[in-house]
Structures are given as structure tokens and as C-alpha cells.
């Protein structure tokens, strides 16, 4: 049961933004801009960074939902999502994405963990300033979402089928604040 009285049966972040839509509105706008706005990274790549950081934070709700969204967006390369979550070192991702995932992993620990060497590696792989900025802000933002969802002990479904539905909705519709049922 959640730490505060939220609507019953609504999972994760949705229950929290329905409890407090005044802050929820801006959280959804932030994630929409970050994961769906104009970028040289694909939507699938950005969802994968989100899932990877959530995985490292042990946030099952965010990890499962964003991994499901990434699988939908990757189309015929869905296995890549699970390979990255299982072992980044061995996963067959391109050099830019690998370097950005490494930076995101550092940010997950602390902003101060990101070293000049991490940045140099990313640049050497061909990452742009805009891409490095996005990797840092996505990782920072999911350090928020993961803590928000788990810090209030919001409902976390266990059935993978529920996440497949969520992932499809996130891939198709992006992030739209849920409406309060009257």
C-alpha cells in the first residue's frame, strides 16, 4: 500500500500525478520534452537510457514500463533492450549510445561521478554536446522519478502483460497527464 492515500488500483507515477496534478503537469511536460522532443537520439535510445537508470536505481515500475516502451520503439530489435539491462559491457549497442549509457550510469550514482574521461570517451565515439546534455538530464530526471515512485511506495504491478500495454501507450501517445475520473 502506498504511504499516502492515492486512488486505488492506479499504478506508479499515474497515481501520484493524479494526487497532485499541479506538480504532475510539469513532470509530464519535462519527460515529454526529454524523451519525445526534437533530438539526434531516437526515442527508442532515450527510453533505453531511462530504463537503464531505473534498473540501476532498482525501481521496478519505471524500469519495466520504460523498457516496454523502448521495446515497442525499437521494432525488430527488441532483444537489445534486455541485453543492455542484463550486461551493458556485452550488449551490441553502437559506440555513441554505449558512452552515453555509461555517463547516465555515473549520473545515477552522483553528478560528481562524471569524469573528464567519460566525456572524452563520448566525444571520441562521436557524441555531440546536445547528446551528452540529454544523457545527463535523462539520468537526472529518472533519479527523480524513481525516488518519487518508490519513496511513496506507489502500486507496482507484477504482471509483465500490464507493462506491455503501458509501453505501447507510451510509445504511441507519449506523455499526457492522465485525467481525473469523476
Amino acid at each position, binding site marked *: 500500500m502506498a*504511504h*499516502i*492515500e492515492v486512488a486505488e488500483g492506479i499504478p506508479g507515477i499515474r497515481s*501520484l500525478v493524479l*494526487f*497532485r496534478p*499541479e*506538480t504532475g*503537469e*510539469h*513532470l509530464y*511536460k*519535462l519527460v515529454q*520534452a*526529454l524523451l519525445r*522532443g*526534437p533530438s539526434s537520439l531516437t526515442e527508442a535510445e532515450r527510453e533505453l537510457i531511462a530504463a537503464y537508470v531505473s534498473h540501476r*536505481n*532498482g*525501481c521496478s515500475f519505471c524500469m519495466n514500463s520504460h523498457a516496454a516502451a523502448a521495446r515497442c520503439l525499437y521494432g525488430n530489435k527488441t532483444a537489445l533492450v534486455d541485453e543492455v539491462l542484463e550486461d551493458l559491457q556485452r550488449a551490441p549497442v553502437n559506440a555513441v549510445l554505449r558512452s552515453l549509457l555509461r*555517463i547516465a550510469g*555515473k*549520473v545515477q550514482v*552522483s*553528478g*560528481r561521478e*562524471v569524469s*573528464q574521461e567519460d*566525456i572524452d570517451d563520448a566525444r571520441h565515439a562521436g557524441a555531440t*554536446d546536445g547528446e*551528452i*546534455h540529454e544523457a*545527463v*538530464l535523462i*539520468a*537526472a*530526471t529518472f*533519479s*527523480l*522519478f*524513481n*525516488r*518519487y*515512485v*518508490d*519513496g*511513496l*511506495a506507489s502500486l507496482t504491478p507484477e504482471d509483465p502483460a500490464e507493462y506491455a500495454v503501458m509501453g505501447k501507450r507510451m510509445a504511441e501517445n507519449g506523455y499526457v497527464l492522465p485525467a481525473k475520473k469523476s
Partner: protein
Amino acid sequence: MAHIDLKNELPGIRGPMAFSPSTAKPLNALAEVLLRDDDNTLTRGERELIGTYVSSLNDCFFCQNIHGALAGHYLQADMAYIDAVKKDYVSTTISDKLKALLAIAAAVQKGGKSVSEEAISQARSFGATDKEIHDTVLIAAAFCMYNRYVDGLATWAPSDRQFYIDRAPRRAEEGYIDFDLYKNTVS
């Protein structure tokens, strides 16, 4: 020097915000509602103090100084008092309810799963409402984001703490959304 070319010389979080206006807008709007909205039973000073405390746990120099100066401004306390709260809030004169909320914020800083039933019950026993507990968790989570954004890009921060104290009254007056990023940038 920052890790990327931000194309400006602005201090702290203003640098990457000017670099990326599309994300700056919701980031600032979130801070405005969470920290300044008057429809809240936690005072602005108390909310800024939660942000300051989490920023100190994350060792983010820029955030703990600007938000510490804002907390001091609202609470009419000097920096020595704010520093005492950061160092050992249990021994300070803040209310029992705020102490219980800071304990929740500290747990959130470690990880969402660190927030225990006991910490929530403790806050409730001192009169904390669901909304106050919600806002405490979200403020703490939000500062885990702002701190990582500021330090993950190695943004520049003035080392003189007086810079932040001087800037606080103006930030308190203008808030987080209706200001020009480039105005009054260097003291």
C-alpha cells in the same frame, strides 16, 4: 569549465537551462509550484530548507548555497543557522514535524525504497498531512535531479558564498519562472 560548451557564462543550473530552453521551462515551473506556491501548508522557508538539506547530502555546492540563502531569507536566519541544520538538524530549533520531514527527505536521497513506514508514522505523529509528506518526497526527489544536472555537467559556480546571499532577495521576489536567465548574472 563545464563538460560541454553551454554557449554562455551563466552560473550553476542557469547555464544548461539557457542551453536547453525546452527542458528549462518545465524544470522551472516544477520548482515554482513545489517551492513557492502559496497554496501549501509548508512555508516557503521550510520547503527551501528541505531542498538545501538534500543538496548538501548530494554535495552540490551551487544548489545548497543558493537554496540555503533562500531558506535563510524566508526564515530570517543567517547562514550559520542554515549550516547547523545541514550538519545536524536534530540539534537545532526547527519544529519536530520539520525534523521528521527532513528524515524522510534524507531517506529519499539514498533511494526511494529507503523510506520506511516508521519514518512516515513519525511524521504523521507530529501532524504531517499526506500532501506535506508527498511534497517532501517530491522536493527531495527533485533536488536529486537538479543536483545531478548541475554537477553531472560540471557547471561553473561562484565560490564566494556571499554571492548567493546577495542574490536571494531578488530570486525570492521574482520566483523561478518570470525572470530573464541573463539578467544580473554576476554580482
